[in-house]
């Protein structure tokens, strides 16, 4: 599905990562797997260091911490936030929305809109689309988009399939009206029939948490996880990305009448280095134009990986001048979404540690 927006812009992004750093090499002994193969996995997938919360930290904790920093540094004021979007799969509660909790904790105005969006790896693009739509309203001047997940608390430490790649983070982006004439294009696809490829089976009403769902089970390849844990069918997701993402981006570029050569960078969601390198190869894009270094430094942080790729690779450039970017996110749902836009100059683009 195509979307087109005029006169909208991202004015800054701040990423909050837990200070607690984990190392793949130190954790290899948790897996029932020969060390040589684990080292091979590290080399191919780009597993190295990542950030995970220590203790019972929640999404609203990371969000409140980051927003308070923006208020302190006068990059944003409480009163000017007209809408607060929280894109997460790991909200503080099943009910109410985490966005309302953040609003209450920060004492934001009551004359505003808070909205949670249940999306993950495609969540930055979907959040931007929602923010742009809200900005069509006369009463909305500034939208705060928070992409945050704490999936480490839902991953089994004995599941080599998922645990070594998960990182926690919150990306806080500010979106407002812009004056640039260049339209922003987006393309979104959904396939709920394949939802089981990325799922946390227990915890909703379909399968409430119980002693039974908490029981660790041998799931093959020496891995153990329970139904309370995040499950990813890695090879199905790999096939899905290789098959569906290139046509999604090609369709977007065709709609916009843009060539791949006119794009400075392809800032994609980063599940692991292997998948992004194969995606770049398939699209015949040089690896240097599709950054893939978030996972080796911070882990796969769900909807926050795209802003993190920008902060990690282009922070200085993008504060000075706009970059022409193609964004693409893909994952849970299944959902895949891409956006073509000029991003920058950003007022702020950086990462800070949550102590």
């Amino acid at each position, binding site marked *: 599905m195509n979307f087109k927006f005029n006169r909208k812009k991202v004015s800054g992004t701040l990423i909050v990562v837990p200070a607690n750093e984990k190392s793949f090499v130190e954790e290899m002994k948790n897996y029932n797997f020969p060390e040589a193969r684990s080292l*091979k*996995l590290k080399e191919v997938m780009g597993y190295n260091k990542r950030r995970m919360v220590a203790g019972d930290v929640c999404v609203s904790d990371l969000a409140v911490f980051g927003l308070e920093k923006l208020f302190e540094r006068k990059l944003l004021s409480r009163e000017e936030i007209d809408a607060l979007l929280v894109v997460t799969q790991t909200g503080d509660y099943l009910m109410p929305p985490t966005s309302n909790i953040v609003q209450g904790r920060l004492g934001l105005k009551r004359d505003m809109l808070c909205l949670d969006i249940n999306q993950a790896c495609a969540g930055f693009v979907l959040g931007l689309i929602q923010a742009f739509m809200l900005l069509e309203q006369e009463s909305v001047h500034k939208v705060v988009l928070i992409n945050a997940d704490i999936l480490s608390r839902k991953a089994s430490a004995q599941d080599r399939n998922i645990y070594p790649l998960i990182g926690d983070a919150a990306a806080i982006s500010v979106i407002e009206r812009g004056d640039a004439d260049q339209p922003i294009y987006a393309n979104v696809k959904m396939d709920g029939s394949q939802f089981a490829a990325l799922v946390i089976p227990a915890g909703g009403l379909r399968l409430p948490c119980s002693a039974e769902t908490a029981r660790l089970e041998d799931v093959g390849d020496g891995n153990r996880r329970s139904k309370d844990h995040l499950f990813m069918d890695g*090879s199905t997701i790999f*096939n899905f990305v290789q098959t569906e993402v290139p046509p999604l981006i090609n369709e977007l570029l065709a709609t916009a009448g843009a060539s791949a050569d006119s794009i400075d960078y392809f800032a994609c969601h980063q599940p692991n280095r292997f998948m992004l390198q*194969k995606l770049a190869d398939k699209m015949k894009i040089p690896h240097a134009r599709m950054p893939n270094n978030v996972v080796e430094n911070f882990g796969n942080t769900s909807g926050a990986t795209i802003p993190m790729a920008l902060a990690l690779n282009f922070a200085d450039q993008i504060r000075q001048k706009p970059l022409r970017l193609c964004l693409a996110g893909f994952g849970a749902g299944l959902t895949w979404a891409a956006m073509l836009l000029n991003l920058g100059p950003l007022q702020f683009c950086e990462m800070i540690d949550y102590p």
Partner: protein
Amino acid sequence: MNEFLTKLAETIEVPEIKEADQLKAFPQWDSLAVLSVIAMLDASYGINLRAADLNAVNSAGELFQLVESKKRV
């Protein structure tokens, strides 16, 4: 066939693979190897196999036949 077997051996990082070799008998044959082979078949032959398709195959020769049959479709 020989070119295919060479590529397969490079992908799962063993010195040599023969037509009759059982893929699951290689100590290197794990989920990472399966993913690497899926990626190689996509890049070299334009074929998208699923892990389940690959795990249903026994010998390297059978995999070659499967790839040939998909190429013709």
